[in-house]
């Protein structure tokens, strides 16, 4: 069940966005990937979820290569990516956005169970099921995006900047929900964040990347206690 990324390189034209990056994430771990703007965090997640091609290297999940596969097929094998920018479809209702999460699944009983679990976790969505997603606040949209992902019953959840543009109190709610999900379901989570304090607050480990290259990794406590790393990469 380990996610293994090995000597991965991703090109944007002539620019190397990810350069010889390697790491491994154990089952059930919540690992945050931290780096400034342009570090390559989003590019890395987009490659792992099949949205963009890679130039070289490999990546595998449960012993199977995940590179070169289509995003929609990876979802069906348990890898679900919540992209940045409160990834909901504003033209659809909250209920329809949630339904999308299980649209390819046949087990209607489990879809209903997963939906009720999401609504327990985010009760505000339950109050707004018939509303258009465009009427939701930023925090509610992020809850909806995560909720939709959970209805797919992922094994590996890739979260891209869930705190982006949200108020501190809402960020706290979202991160606490992510942590609760991980604890309850034993999910493996890759959390890409610029908000290092919040991310390391719930993560087991952190991986710092800069300009597409691996800088260091370690437990959240060790990264937060290193004054050099804090000053250079963590922003606090």
């Amino acid at each position, binding site marked *: 069940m380990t996610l293994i990324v090995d000597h991965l390189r991703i090109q944007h034209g002539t620019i190397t966005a990810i350069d010889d990056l390697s790491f491994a994430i154990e089952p059930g771990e919540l690992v945050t990937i931290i780096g400034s703007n342009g570090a390559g965090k989003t590019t890395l997640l987009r490659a792992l979820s099949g949205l963009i091609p890679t130039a070289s290297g490999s990546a595998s999940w449960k012993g199977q290569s995940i590179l070169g596969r289509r995003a929609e097929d990876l979802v069906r094998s348990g890898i679900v990516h919540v992209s940045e920018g409160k990834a909901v*479809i504003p033209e659809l209702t909250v209920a*329809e956005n949630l339904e999308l999460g299980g*649209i390819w699944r046949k087990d209607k009983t489990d879809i209903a169970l997963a939906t009720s679990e999401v609504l327990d976790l985010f009760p505000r969505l339950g109050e707004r099921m018939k509303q258009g997603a465009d009427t939701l606040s930023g925090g509610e949209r992020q809850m909806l995006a995560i909720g939709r992902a959970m209805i797919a019953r992922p094994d590996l959840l890739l979260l891209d900047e869930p705190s982006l543009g949200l108020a501190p109190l809402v960020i706290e709610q979202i991160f606490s929900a992510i942590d609760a999900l991980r604890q309850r379901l034993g999910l493996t989570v890759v959390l890409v964040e610029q908000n290092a304090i919040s991310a390391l607050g719930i993560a087991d480990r952190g991986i710092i990347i800069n300009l597409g290259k691996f800088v260091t990794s370690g437990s959240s406590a060790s990264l937060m206690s290193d004054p050099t790393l804090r000053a250079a990469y963590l922003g606090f």
Partner: protein
Amino acid sequence: MTTFFNTILVGISSGSIYALMSLSLVLVWRSTRVVNFAAAGQAVLSTYLGYEAMSRLHNYWLSLPIAVIAGALISAIVESFVMRPLAKRSKGSPVESIAPVIATLGILGLIRGIAGLVWGNTFLQYTSPLSSKGFMIGHTTIPFSPLNAAIVIGAAIVLAFFAAIFRFTRLGLALRAASFQPEISRLSGIRVDRIRTIGWAFAGAAGALAGALVTPTTYLSPNSLDLLLVSGFVAAVIGGLESLIGAVVGGLVLGVGFAFILQYIGSEVTFSAAFIILIIVLFIRPQGIFGRGGSREA
């Protein structure tokens, strides 16, 4: 007053046909952001196939579903083997946005050419068993025939079918999601390419039905549905290009508008009236009656 109501009846009948063609264009626009000028060619080809079926089976009602299925298949083939590879090839190039539109014009010309080669450039009769003679109300014949009634009922059934698909089924949800946000749809497990092909097939079926219903009122030739394409396009713009309800309302508004122009001004201005209406709509409400004011990510 009788003339007024008769004119509305005539308008509803022709408007139903425009609504179907408009629906065809809107379905394609929503799924791939392409104005499909080939819709007229696809509809002509499927109508020719319906004509062939009728020649052999001697039954218009059997030829109708054959034409509709043929229209769906032709459209799916166009999307899978021309439009999708072209979109992938032209991605990121300076002609990315215009190449698909030019391709649809090319397909329109190609289909017309093939139809001309196979069936000749003569006017063929694709006749319906229904009378085109108006119903009698008392001692008065109204300009609304059993054929007109079949057109309105057929269009209504198809529109209700599409509305039900889009509103109540997983396929409809996938079609809507893929048209609004393809990437989020893919990340939700939707096979967007396949869904787009289905969207084009639905569009082809709607266009084919429009062609097979309208042709018995006129004749069949390689370019006999060109005016229908123009009317369908204007109706789609009136409705807002995005909205299925808008496509229907746009078609009916245009049909009734044309009927009044024919009745009170004359047939000479009908064709140019379509473009005048188009320009007026674009100036006053460019997003159409049911379109959203702002831009939408797609």
